């Protein structure tokens, strides 16, 4: 079973086998402690029945990883579109995007999430969205005149 993380995944290192715990990176907290995470892009691979193998399937199921071999894809049983939709839902949950409007903007690629000041981080379609919105507003004003 094989999967590739498509987002940062926080972990409890005490509950992991040593080889997977060693792959975790620290995220310093303000109180001086560390929280640990596996970085985006990390590969989890293992035989069926092993912790890594089960984890690859589990994280593919939650959308936090993309299945990377035929075996994992078959177990998950989703089309690429369904898997992508679950990935997007997982990202929104992890980023705390709850507002319906913001969720639509995220799914449309207009925003990538929030920055530390809770302003929207522009996505790849940010400029196109705002240009289209401005054009629609201008057209509405013209029609009213």
């Amino acid at each position: 079973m094989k999967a590739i993380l498509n987002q940062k995944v926080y972990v409890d290192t005490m509950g992991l086998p040593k080889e997977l715990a060693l792959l975790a990176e620290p995220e310093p907290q303000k109180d001086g402690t560390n929280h640990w995470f596996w970085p985006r892009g990390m590969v989890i691979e293992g035989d069926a029945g092993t912790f890594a193998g089960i984890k690859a399937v589990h994280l593919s199921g939650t959308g936090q990883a993309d299945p990377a071999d035929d075996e994992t894809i078959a177990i998950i049983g989703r089309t690429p579109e369904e898997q992508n939709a679950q990935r997007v839902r997982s990202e929104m949950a992890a980023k705390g995007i709850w507002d319906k409007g913001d969720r639509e903007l995220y799914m449309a690629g207009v925003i990538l999430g929030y920055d530390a000041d809770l302003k929207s981080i522009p996505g790849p379609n940010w400029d196109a969205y705002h240009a289209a919105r401005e054009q629609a507003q201008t057209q509405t004003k013209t029609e009213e005149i």
Partner: protein
Amino acid sequence: MAILKSKGTAILVSISASYTAMEEVQSISVSGHKSLSMPTTSLAGGSHMTKAPNGYVETPNISVEKLWDPANTVDAFIKTTIATPVATNVKITYTNSGPTSVIYSCATFGVDESISLTDPVKATITMETSGAPS
């Protein structure tokens, strides 16, 4: 003091040592975290009752309101954990510059489902925490 907005706050559950965020959360409540006291009033004292910290802390309960999907990985895990209880870590990440995260060890989980005519299927998940948050 930073004023934190609710948006951007995430709650994650540790499933087999990796955290997965709960989806479709509508509200999160962490309540009941308080220092405990002991009475120190004596007959020789004044009329007002007196107390002192007894050195113990009541741990908070976490309550989450969310849309409920039994097929969702986290929702299904919570149901399984109710039937076969095991201490489970839950992490709440607040959006501020940082960000700041707190991990609670949850001793028990509970789910109250709500299915009504005009609303989506919802649930209130309650978690009793144990020990100091980290």
